[in-house]
């Protein structure tokens, strides 16, 4: 189970740093840095640069995504920004506008 959960009704304006998993159901504006997995659930709104380990996106992200592991954009995800990761999947139904950098 994730150690940090941002609930659906919660809005955070600012900077989040976590040494552990982060699950976002709510809204984040600012910056999100995690050492571990980041999950951006359906309905979540993230207007922030996101850095972390394995990343699963099913919500809306406006900002750059950098992962030390992999990024999965799931169906329903809406991402405007650049994605940097060594492995990336973009599911059917995911919306994505930006550059992909796979570190090659």
């Amino acid at each position: 189970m994730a150690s940090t959960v941002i609930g659906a009704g919660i809005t955070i304006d600012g900077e989040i740093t976590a040494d552990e998993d982060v699950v976002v159901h709510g809204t984040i504006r600012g910056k999100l840095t995690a050492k571990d997995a980041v999950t951006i659930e359906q309905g979540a709104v993230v207007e922030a640069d996101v850095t972390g380990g394995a990343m699963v996106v099913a919500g809306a992200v406006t900002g750059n995504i950098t992962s030390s592991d992999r990024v999965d954009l799931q169906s329903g995800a809406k991402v405007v920004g650049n994605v940097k990761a060594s492995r990336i999947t973009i599911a059917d139904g995911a919306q994505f506008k930006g550059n992909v950098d796979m570190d090659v």
Partner: protein
Amino acid sequence: MAQTRSATRLNSDGRDARIGSGARIRGRIQGDGDLTIEGTVEGEIAVRGALVIAEGASVTSDVEAQEVTIAGALEGNVNASGQVRVAVGARVHGDLRGKSVAIDEGAEYAGRLDCEFDLPPELEGGGRRR
């Protein structure tokens, strides 16, 4: 070590929020729902729901919530529409304002208490009017 009963409460229905012990937030947290803080928060917190500052948490911020339970360290003022509880092991620097305030034995507290309640009529200065 003191147990904080309410800190372990967590429903994963997406409504509740939890800032884990390895997390640090600088900024403003606001919204609906309950919030449990086990990590570090600097900024401002305003939630419509219950707020729990768990043991080991460090919060430097003014706090607004329906109900507030503190078992960690808090530097800042508390404004609650319901109950405020300062549990054993808590270290609180700031003013507490709530409908009722409870400070457990073993809590460290420095600040002012502002408790909203109706005085019994015999203590209301001037007696009954009208």
